[in-house]
């Protein structure tokens, strides 16, 4: 991704974003609310076009959603009229899978995200955490080489969020893919990422990229490492200067 920028009529959301994500790398992107994280991911997915620069994947410019990339949405994006099973099967079905392939694969992914037994429930009958497990299974089911995660656990309560983070680490270990993980939670960014990219400024730019040299596999014990606390502190300080300023602007 080079020289990428996006403007909505007058609002320049971000500009001069330069970044590269390696194969099987997890890049965590962190930034305050409204800084354009979702917009950036949408551009990476090819849902909306950039206004400057370009994004390439495997050597090809991204102009529309392409095969091999799947997104997990902040808003879950489950269809209320479909059961968990059919929601998970949605992407695979669109990719042209046969009934037999679907019947074979979908239970596997439902099991992977821990939703076995809930196949025939409707989204409104399950909790927010379970809904996002469903959204995750839907994305994983198309076996993407790149996973785009837009604050996937932003809309669930704190406790569920922690559980889902470790679930996510477990799932990633079992099938590592390239992943761009957007979040506004510092712990989550440091826990998930091989690198943490801090988006900051107005318009947003890449303020800093922090290497996260924590060992994998990561799990609950990772949170107790002194190095984790250091990195966390570092990202916190980088972000907070910005947040203070934003707060001052609101007061004024």
């Amino acid at each position, binding site marked *: 991704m080079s020289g990428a920028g996006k403007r909505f009529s007058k609002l320049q959301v971000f500009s001069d974003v330069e970044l590269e994500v390696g194969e099987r790398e997890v890049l965590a992107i962190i930034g305050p609310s409204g800084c354009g994280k979702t917009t950036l991911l949408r551009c990476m997915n090819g849902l909306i076009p950039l206004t400057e620069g370009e994004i390439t994947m495997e050597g090809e410019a991204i102009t529309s*959603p392409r095969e091999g990339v799947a997104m997990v949405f902040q808003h879950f994006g489950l*269809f209320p009229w479909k059961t968990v099973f059919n929601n998970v099967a*949605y992407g695979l079905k669109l990719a042209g899978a046969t009934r037999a392939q679907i019947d074979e694969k979908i239970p596997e992914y439902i099991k992977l995200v821990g939703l076995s037994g809930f196949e025939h429930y409707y989204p409104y009958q399950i909790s927010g955490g379970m809904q996002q497990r469903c959204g995750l299974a839907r994305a994983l089911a*198309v076996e993407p080489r790149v996973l785009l995660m837009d604050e996937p656990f932003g809309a669930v309560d704190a406790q569920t969020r922690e559980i889902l983070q470790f679930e996510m680490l477990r799932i990633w270990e079992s099938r590592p893919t390239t992943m761009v993980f957007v979040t506004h939670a510092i712990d989550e960014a440091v826990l998930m990422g091989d690198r943490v990219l801090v988006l900051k400024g107005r318009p947003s730019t890449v303020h800093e990229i922090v290497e996260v040299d924590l060992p994998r596999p990561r799990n609950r014990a990772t949170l107790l490492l002194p190095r984790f606390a250091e990195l966390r502190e570092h990202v916190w300080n980088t972000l907070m200067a910005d947040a203070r300023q934003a707060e001052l602007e609101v007061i004024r």
Partner: protein
Amino acid sequence: MTAQTVAAARSPVPDAERSSWVTSPLFLKIAAGIVLLLIWEGVVRAFAPGYVAKPSGIVRVFAAVISDRQFLSAAGQTLSAVLIGLLISIVFGTAVGFAMGRINVVERGLRYYVNSLFATPMIAILPLVTLWFGYNADARLAVVVFAAFFSISTNACDGARSVPLEYLEVAQSFRARPFQTLFDIIFPSSLPYLLAGLRLAAGRALVGAVVAEFFVSIPGLGYYILYNSRTFKHNEAFIAVIVLVAVGVSFEALINWLTRRYLPWARRD
């Protein structure tokens, strides 16, 4: 028996509960119905000529009318016209409504016409319809379609327009083709609106069919009512009215049942 009496005495029922059957909805419904029927019967007997419909008269002719071939064929014709008209309206009304809801150019072009036609009283166009289609069953079908079409297309349009952007984003992200998005997302997401439109359309279609029969004089329940009223057979005419009411109420119940059974998710918001 003694044991039962003792048990009942030992667990006294509170006053409110003991008298509850008197205030139960079912009892009140039946009681109110009986009272209304009695008033009707009484008033007609006291003040009206003998041919005016009254409950006892309706009961007397009921079996004969219900098994009368002419009556059955009239009911069949009216109801099949309503059903066919509704089917035509569902298919084309949904198509037009979806096109309006999703394609701005279509919406801007058609909005005023569809809204105006939706608001047009169907009785006003009846003379014109008979000129175009002749005094026959086609005119009735045309009136039914006219009555039903616009409530369905208007609702389909609203439904298609209110599809949450999130769903469309997900579809786009998973590389859905336009017609897949139409059937996988726009249609199910609009279903609550479509059913609401259908409920409205069914009532209007029934009225349209009856009014067309009055005007065009073709066999059907409406004409049956008209003919029997004019020949002083009010009891017979009233049975046709009852059938029309029953059809309207059953259709309403059917749609409610469909909503509960197949759209449990739609009741949450």
